[in-house]
């Protein structure tokens, strides 16, 4: 399914990464690696630096130390538009579509780097993946429901056939059923077809269900990481994120 939509994944690697705003680091010395065919998730309490970490990977927030690589390319502090040309698709947590533009125009912008003659075919491929969008092509993105909007946001990045998907809380503000479908059907589906998926997710249980590897961020640092099966048996993780004690979420 996503084989039509994405190209074979590349390794996304951050090494000793520090990043933040106005020269002040929020993320400290983080090393993380997402590989093709796998979903790597990042969980952590609010303010732990999850979104800042993702933004620094895609060029939105300045990297203050360390390196970021996609495949063989060093993308440290590369501009977001150049990162996009290297096949990295990024869906932010909020402001993930262009509200005044129609669904069709959002997808057109998603395919901005494609040759003009390919855009129509790419839109068709995206619509096969998200058929619900077919009926709302002329509707303004600002008028969509949360779930429709998130599909459009994903569809927009899929226009460029990304090899790496970087998703910041894609299930935020979605109804539980829609969130589960998005994670287990679509996002897991991308990885199973060979894409690299790096995911920030607030809902720790759901993140573990779809992930191959999970990192826990606290105070801007990786405090715990491992495969979901290990984390599910880790008392600290269970107490903090799975409701085993006083949940911190």
């Amino acid at each position, binding site marked *: 399914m996503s084989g039509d939509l994405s190209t074979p994944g590349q390794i996304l690697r951050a090494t000793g990464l520090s990043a933040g705003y106005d020269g002040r680091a929020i993320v400290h010395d983080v090393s993380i690696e997402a590989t093709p065919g796998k979903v790597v998730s990042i969980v952590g309490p609010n303010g732990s630096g999850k979104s800042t970490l993702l933004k620094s990977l*895609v*060029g*939105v927030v300045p990297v203050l130390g360390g390196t970021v690589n996609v495949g063989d390319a060093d993308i440290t502090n590369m*501009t*977001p*538009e150049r*990162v*996009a*040309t290297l096949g990295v698709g*990024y869906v*932010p947590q909020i*402001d*993930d*579509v*262009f*509200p*005044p*533009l129609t669904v069709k*125009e959002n997808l*057109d*912008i*998603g395919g*901005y*780097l494609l040759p*003009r003659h390919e855009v129509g075919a790419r839109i068709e491929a995206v619509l096969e993946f998200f058929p619900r969008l077919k009926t709302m092509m002329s509707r303004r993105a600002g008028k969509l429901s949360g779930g429709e909007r998130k599909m459009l946001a994903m569809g*927009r*990045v899929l226009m*460029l056939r990304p090899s790496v998907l970087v998703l910041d809380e894609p299930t935020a503000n979605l109804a539980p059923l829609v969130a589960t479908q998005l994670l287990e059907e679509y996002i897991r589906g991308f990885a199973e077809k060979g894409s690299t998926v790096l995911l920030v997710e607030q809902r720790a249980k759901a993140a573990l269900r779809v992930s191959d590897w999970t990192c826990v961020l606290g105070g801007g640092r990786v405090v715990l990481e491992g495969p979901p099966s290990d984390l599910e048996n880790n008392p600290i993780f269970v107490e903090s994120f799975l409701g085993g004690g006083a949940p911190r979420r």
Partner: protein
Amino acid sequence: MSVFLSSLGFGLITAAVLALATVGFTMQFAVTNVLNLAYGSVMINSAFVTYFLNVHTRLNAWVALGGGVATGAIVSYLINRFIFTPFQRRNLPPITIVMVALGVDLCGTFGLQAIVGGSYFSFRQSPGRLWHFWGMYFSTLQLTIIGIAVVVLALVHWLLKYTRLGKAMRATSANMNLARNSGVRTQMVISTTWIISGALCGLAGTVFAMDTGVFDATSAQLYIVLLLAAMFLGGPGEPYGAMLGAVTIGVATEVSAGFINPQYKEVIAFVVLIGMLMFRPYGIFGKEKTL
């Protein structure tokens, strides 16, 4: 009734010129968040370039108009590139940029006056024969200006709605970071926006001077009030709103001039501007700053 109809005719001319100017003005605001108060001075400087080509090199006024359009485009690009952009990079508050724009406006207007003096000027151009429709009177020149406005605004609509560049401009206006993440080279889009909106500014300035008949270096100084009123009426950053706002303000000011002292017709624009800012600051169309 005849006073009303003839005023309505004047209003349509004013609206045509104002619509050209306001669409460029609002495009600059939408894409770069700059309230360019220097717009009026670029308009009148462009008009003087057209005047120079028309009177001193004896070019046909409509051909010389190309010089005014090019001046507007180039000067606007340079103002953004070398004045507004460096200030914006320092993340200064919007009021600082407004003050800078005001300074640029004063330099542009009085710098021009220092060069051309305080005299009045007019193009070497005949207004042509007078046409009479439903109680309204138009010269051939005025009908040509209305025609130019209709064609140019249709082209702006086509640009924004159907071209890749236009969609990139609207995307950049809506969410610059997301546009960059989609691969849009937003700096190039912003520069192009200033060139296009500057061309509209130059065109508007020249047809404004042509319609006025007699103009001097300070003729466009109060024009910024009409621009702001039209933009806020339609919704800041909304080009279609700017067109509607321009028609409303243009007709309202001229029709009112048929009944009150014409010297005070700009007061109507002030009243509309204050009313919109008080009761609906996002204008009729606008919900947020968008293109």
